[in-house]
């Protein structure tokens, strides 16, 4: 039976609760109800007292998790939507992120952010916040794009002795399926994945945009181009090595992200490639992000606001013909 991306997230949490008694889950409606998206369905019943409903207090939820973490537990905090982590922003970047550096006491915890746009989601239920958290020293930011990574990166996040912002993409929750969950990941969490081999240009991307990029690559292959697609998996730290290795072979690159065009992962990737891979480049490195407005509510507007396969293909053609 196929496993969805969402089921993989649930399975990883079930395994973490099972294997490590320090793990607990905290967040709005995560208990008996199983969470707004059902990512914790059944877990409260299976692990009494370890899957707890929080008040609508994101700041306190993160503060509480920090306290539990420095006391030796391993909290997983679910934000109902990534967008609501904005009210816990200070606790995340000022306390969780600085704890180890300031005190020498590690602060392992995972904050799950249901991220990204869906039709009808609108400005406050669609945000991608990976760039916000990645900017702050002291955080690891994961952005799984596949069912397998959703599972294995979450398990790695729970094991890591650092606070992890785990950005799971809502658009993939039920769309994306895998035949089975492999026991082990084919890659350590610190490596980007070459999701498709190519020769003519490299697309560097992550999360839901991986699938748009793969579609674009498929389309272009029918035009005779071989596009390599790199899935970052973790956006902080970034595996620059894998990106550069790819660009050294293709000579061209496009960074694609769903979040806002000023800054973001795309800027970071292009800046790295430009600085460290300049000699490999046969064409200007390019970027594609969403439009510089809040994420619009109406599906028509939303579809035009985010990058998609057609647009990726269009820009890639420009890159290829440079």
């Amino acid at each position, binding site marked *: 039976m196929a496993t969805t991306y969402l089921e993989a997230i649930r399975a990883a949490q079930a395994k973490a609760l099972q294997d490590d008694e320090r793990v607990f889950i905290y967040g709005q409606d995560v208990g008996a109800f199983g969470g707004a998206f059902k990512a914790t369905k059944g877990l409260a019943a299976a692990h009494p007292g370890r899957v707890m409903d929080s008040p609508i207090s994101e700041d306190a939820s993160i503060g509480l998790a920090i306290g539990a973490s420095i006391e030796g537990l391993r909290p997983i905090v679910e934000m109902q939507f990534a967008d609501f982590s904005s*009210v816990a922003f200070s606790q995340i970047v000022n306390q969780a992120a600085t704890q180890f550096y300031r005190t020498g006491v590690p602060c392992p915890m995972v904050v799950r952010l249901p991220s990204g746009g869906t039709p009808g989601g609108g400005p406050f239920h669609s945000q991608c916040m990976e760039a916000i958290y990645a900017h702050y020293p002291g955080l690891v930011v994961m952005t799984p794009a596949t069912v397998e990574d959703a599972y294995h990166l979450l398990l790695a996040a729970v094991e890591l002795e650092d606070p992890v912002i785990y950005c799971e993409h809502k658009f993939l929750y039920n769309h994306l399926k895998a035949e089975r969950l492999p026991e082990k990941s084919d890659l350590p969490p610190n490596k980007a994945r070459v999701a498709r081999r190519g020769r003519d240009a490299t697309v560097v991307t992550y999360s839901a945009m991986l699938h748009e990029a793969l579609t674009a690559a498929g389309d272009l292959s029918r035009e005779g181009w071989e596009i390599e697609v790199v899935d970052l998996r973790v956006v902080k730290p970034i595996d620059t090595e894998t990106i550069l290795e790819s660009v050294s072979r293709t000579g061209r690159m496009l960074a694609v992200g769903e979040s806002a065009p000023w800054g973001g992962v795309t800027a970071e990737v292009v800046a790295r490639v430009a600085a460290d891979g300049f000699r490999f480049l046969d064409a200007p490195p390019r970027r594609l992000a969403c439009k510089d407005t809040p994420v619009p509510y*109406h599906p028509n507007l939303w579809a035009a606001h985010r990058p998609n396969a057609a647009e990726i293909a269009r820009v890639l053609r420009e890159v290829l013909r440079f």
Partner: protein
Amino acid sequence: MVELAPSPVVQSAEIPLKPESKRENFVRAYRWMLLARTLDEKLAALYKAGGKISGGVFLGTGQEALSTALGVALRKGDVFAPLIRDLAGRLAFGEPVLDATRTYLGSRLGPMRGRDGNIHRGRIAEGQMAMISHLGAMISTTAGVLLARRMRGQTGTVGAISIGDGATSTGSTHEGLNTAAVEHLPLVAVIANNQYAYSTPTSRQFACEDLLDRAKGYGYEGHSVDGTDLEACLEVLQRAVDRAREGHGPQMVVARLLRLTGHGLHDDASYVDPKLKASPVGADCLRLAEKTLLERRWAEAKDLASWKAECVKEVDEAAAQAMRDPAPDPKLEDWSALNEPEMLDLGLATRG
């Protein structure tokens, strides 16, 4: 519902009600409730039919008495920041039915032009705040409108904000309520304790006996009300709004009731305690109001039926209109989040 005269309750703030106006008042409020319930039913039907409504639909079922009472207690020129279950109050405060149907049904002509959806709609120029999702955020914003009016010497205005039991836990709510008190603003904070925040019962939300206990800690005058009882709601909300308008500073109203629907239409609310449903708090305020109307002979069954028919007609027409409207067109959008992009934008063209 064009037949309804503009809410006469404006006067009731000045002139004590005569027995006739008590009836008039009740009937008028009931008809707003009925309109809201009818519109909610329509939206639910459209949502369930599929494909017509994007995003969530959050109903006010069971909260119409409270919400209406707030809406009618406010005057034109006041400010109202509704929350997700305030369709009735929005309508009573003056929001056209078409605003709701257009927003839900994705018309380009709705107040949000497709840029934001559903419960987030508002018309700032009419004092109808357009809520962001982050619970509690609109409280300080409403306070800011009131502060600005006071700074400009505009008096007699009231601002109302609506939140749920769950939203009381946010820092934003706390800061907003406290700031309004420090400024002694004419703010009416209505807390609908409907026993649940999504699936979370109040026992996981706060540990005080009664949320009204918070009024004193913020320096608010406090009012308690049975949210299933329209008459009580009309009286208490009017009193709270009057007190704010008369300069007694911010007012807190805490209503006891039960959310008679899922959190949104996607939610079957199977977690709601059956004991609560069976208890007085679980009563349907609309049915109770109907009972009162009939018992007091303020209306007959056929009046109820004809009012309902009017509501259905108005709602159906608004829905039909919205469905005929053009959808938002990305090509017609300017895709700018700035009001003065031309002044500042030089080369923010990282798109492709």
